[in-house]
């Protein structure tokens, strides 16, 4: 096997090893990557910034631990912005592995806000966590009529009618927007039923591999903002002025992308060299 043939057919284990080493080294090295803010991320930030204290939004956290590296920073950044602006937040988790994860992220956001400002955000007053119920489509449709239909009680078993924050909130008409942070097809249901049927303004934060699927909805204004993968999360961390794991992760992502591009180039050089050599032989 000559050099070009080797370039054409590198064993996949070498690809894995190179990527692994590159990721570890980029984690250890101290450098930063500029994070330019996209229009679709800024739209979400500006929308929430434009709300008044006391307004409510619905934060739908429809993801599981497998994608939390990408989506957790979005959740924490949006919660930080809402808590800082004193915006009330209704939170749901319509993925079967999501409820405990969402509960912990809320606790983290509350603790961070308390550490930053000394103000303790209270469940039922500043935010309400409704938790999980099966059948996302039915739950989204049900909440459009009345939050109390699918969720008579919150995640902690407290009746919704006894929570002060819910006194004036019946359905989507009483929230300013839904921000759906998702690693599942629940985003499609939010677009079709939350926005399509009930007309609630919707913005989404999705994983990198999902992001390209949702650009059509951005152009038609079915969603007013989009955070795509780690890059979107990093943008939001920058917007709320709390660079964290997503901004840190950008350097790993860029190095990984560079390695993948390098392998694509190597593969193509090998491919063309072999094709030329075959033509010469023929």
């Amino acid at each position, binding site marked *: 096997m000559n050099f070009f043939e080797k370039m054409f057919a*590198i064993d*996949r284990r070498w*690809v*894995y090893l190179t*990527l*692994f080493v590159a990721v570890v080294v980029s984690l250890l090295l101290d450098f930063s*990557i*500029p994070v*330019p803010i996209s229009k679709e991320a800024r739209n979400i930030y500006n929308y929430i910034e434009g709300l008044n204290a006391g307004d409510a939004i619905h934060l739908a956290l429809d993801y*599981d*631990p*497998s*994608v*939390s*590296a990408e989506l957790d920073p979005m959740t924490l950044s949006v919660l930080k912005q809402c808590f800082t602006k004193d915006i009330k937040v209704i939170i749901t988790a319509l993925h079967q*592995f999501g*409820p*405990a*994860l969402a*509960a912990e992220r809320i606790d983290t956001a509350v603790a961070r806000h308390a550490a930053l400002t000394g103000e303790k955000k209270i469940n039922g007053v500043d935010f309400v966590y409704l938790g999980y*119920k*099966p*059948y996302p489509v*039915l739950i989204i*449709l*049900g909440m459009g*009529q*009345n939050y109390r*239909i*699918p969720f008579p009680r919150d*995640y*902690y078993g407290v009746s919704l009618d006894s929570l002060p924050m819910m006194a004036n909130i019946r359905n989507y008409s009483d929230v300013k927007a839904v921000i759906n942070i998702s690693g599942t097809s629940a985003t499609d249901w939010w677009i079709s039923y939350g926005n399509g*049927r009930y007309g609630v303004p919707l913005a989404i934060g999705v994983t990198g591999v999902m992001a*390209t*699927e949702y*650009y*059509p909805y951005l*152009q038609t204004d079915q969603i007013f903002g989009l955070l795509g993968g780690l*890059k979107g999360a990093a943008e939001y961390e920058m917007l709320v002025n709390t660079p964290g794991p997503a901004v840190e992760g*950008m350097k790993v*992502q*860029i190095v*990984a*992308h*560079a*390695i*993948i*591009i390098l*392998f*694509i180039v*190597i*593969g*193509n050089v090998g*491919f*063309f060299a072999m094709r030329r050599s075959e033509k010469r032989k023929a």
Partner: protein
Amino acid sequence: MKRQLPLAIIFLCGAFTLFQYFIPHEQSEYLYEFVALDWPPIIGVFALMLGIFSLIRVSWGKIRRKSENWPYAIVTLIGLAGMIATGLPGIGDHNAPAVRWQFNYIVYPVSATMFSILSFFIASAAYRAFRARSFLATVLLVSAVIVMIRFFPLGPLTDPVGTTADWVLNVPNLAAKRAIVIGVGLGIVATALKIVLGIERSYMGRD
């Protein structure tokens, strides 16, 4: 009767859901609230029981026959029993420390690991798949590289690359995606209508 009754139920449920969607009236919503939102979860509970029974039966069969990788079936059954036992009301609950522990130290790392491993497969697949074998393959390759490098700090090239990547995402990607979504949507509508009207009956088994 054996065939007519299920068909009638499907027709009534399908027609009701279809018409209710377009009638934003209080009475219609009231009906929906007490029919559509109550029945599927009840059916789902039975489906869940069926799923658990099936999982136990398949795993137990593997253990008994000592099939390939049968020890994993034991782990599956222990995991199932452990999560149910600690999450049952009276013993624990969905928020109990034991459930949280299993979630944080088993479910979380396992699912995060599975997803992370994907990046290695993607890297290997990209190396093999993105070859400029034809004109269309070259277009795909160039588009993929442009979209991937849009995050790179490329000095004076940053803006043009970013603009090109946005164009790729907002024009050709969007046009293709729209065509797929509309096609799939029409397919769903056609299939749903066929089921509601009793033309498509494969879900009832062979008749």
